[in-house]
């Protein structure tokens, strides 16, 4: 990271509102008809990738461009939650999916939970009107 001193009249920077956690995650999901894809931000300078996408590179502050991520990966770890935050319906299943793009995504898991395996293959699903961020993963068929 390098900075050059600027000599200018001080001006206020722009605030980019990213909203709640759900809104942040939704910004990383793109729907095209029945198909869904996760979109990360990739740094134009250092190639750091972030999902959910960020407005600037967290590593070097350079500009970022959108990058569509693979729609299948492997399940790094998962759990069935029986006690959760107050007001949340249980049980539900969540986990972390490792995508070949080098990104680990936290995700709801749906479908037959008995088919989920640690390091097992999973695929992306989604629906524009679905609750939360609108996407989830299931064990691959």
């Amino acid at each position: 990271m390098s900075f050059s001193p600027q000599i200018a009249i001080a001006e206020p920077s722009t605030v980019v509102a990213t909203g709640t956690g759900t809104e942040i995650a939704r910004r990383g999901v793109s729907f095209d008809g029945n198909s869904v894809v996760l979109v990360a931000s990739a740094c134009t300078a250092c190639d750091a990738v972030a999902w959910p996408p960020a407005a600037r590179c967290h590593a070097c502050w350079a500009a970022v461009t959108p990058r569509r991520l693979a729609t299948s990966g492997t399940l790094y770890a998962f759990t069935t939650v029986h006690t959760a935050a107050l007001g949340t319906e249980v049980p539900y299943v969540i986990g972390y999916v490792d995508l070949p793009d080098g990104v680990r995504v936290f995700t709801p898991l749906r479908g037959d939970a008995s088919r989920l395996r640690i390091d097992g293959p999973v695929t992306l699903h989604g629906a524009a009107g679905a609750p939360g961020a609108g996407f989830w993963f299931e064990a691959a068929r």
Partner: protein
Amino acid sequence: MNGRHVAVVGAGMIRFGKYPDASYPDLAQPAVVDAIRSAGIEPHEIDATFCGHSFGGMLTGQRILKGLGMTGEAIVNVENACSSGAGAFHQAQAAIASGEIETALVIGVDKLTQFAGGTLPLNVEDHEVASGMVMPALYAMRAQRYLHDYGYDADDLARVSVKARANGALNPFAQFRKPVTLEEVRASRPIAEPLNLFQCCPTGDGGAAVVLMSAERARRSGATPVWVRASVLHSGRYMTGFRDFTLPEITVRSAKDAYEQAGIGPDDLDFAEVHDAFTIAELLYYEALQLCERGEAPRLVADGVTALGGRVPVNPSGGLLAKGHPIGATGVGQLAEAYWQLTGRCGDRQVAGARIGLTHVTGGGIAGFDHGACAITILAA
């Protein structure tokens, strides 16, 4: 350690538990009074107070101290999740070491019964939290991965609870004072698989306090000093890619720095109080604190190495699993326990001949981090 030497000279704590009708001052004031009395000083001799809490709201330290006539000097409120109390301690010892002040009060306090139930409320600006992440689930996934990678089973987790509850039964400050059997842990209801109820720290309230002094001031006082040999506070490293859930990077880094600061190694520890919010955490921290090689932690529990009477007792107080985890109070409660252990005041749970002890807390619940904060302290008689 940089700067002047710092001593802990007094400690106080209420029994952690459920006090739904108690205010934050109600929870903290008895601990403050006991800490200052055990230091053998007058309240006005405190130069500054550092108060750690996560859910106390505005000016918690001032609300506590106004009823004790201890106002007018600096009061700093510190929030760092489960490391709030230990983070306050870190700031206090730094203020003494630098020469700014001679005597400091550290308070840790929190009241979790103010919430109507469910898991610890996390911040919904976090996208993982918004999608269902809760603390038991995070540790459950670490547990699943650890058991998978190293070939252990759920009983290897459950044995940590049995040890914790056995120690808690000996500790009058513990929320849970009833031992549990392996069968009872197995039979408790599931929380986040593979963790069940008896593998999770309870919800509760608590207050704890310690008094710190410069070496010079401590020598002039009549109190029994315990020396701060290391005090480390770090934040976790934010990462967007893959990370190994069985290697808690923030604790690994903090432990390395703490041993270096103290000029000792893990073999020199007589006991440790570690952040066993869930059974798996204690196992991961044995390895991160270098008490054993990676993949060997369950053997330490099974062989009694970390039990009272073992080579290096871990959580002689009962830890978070038995003593309780009112999050901002936890780190200061550990330091109170360490002070009492190193001054031989722990009764039935006393670690015989304890000369050097380590305390460790983390603070989690944030996407992209192992944990948001970690504080490690090494104290010596």
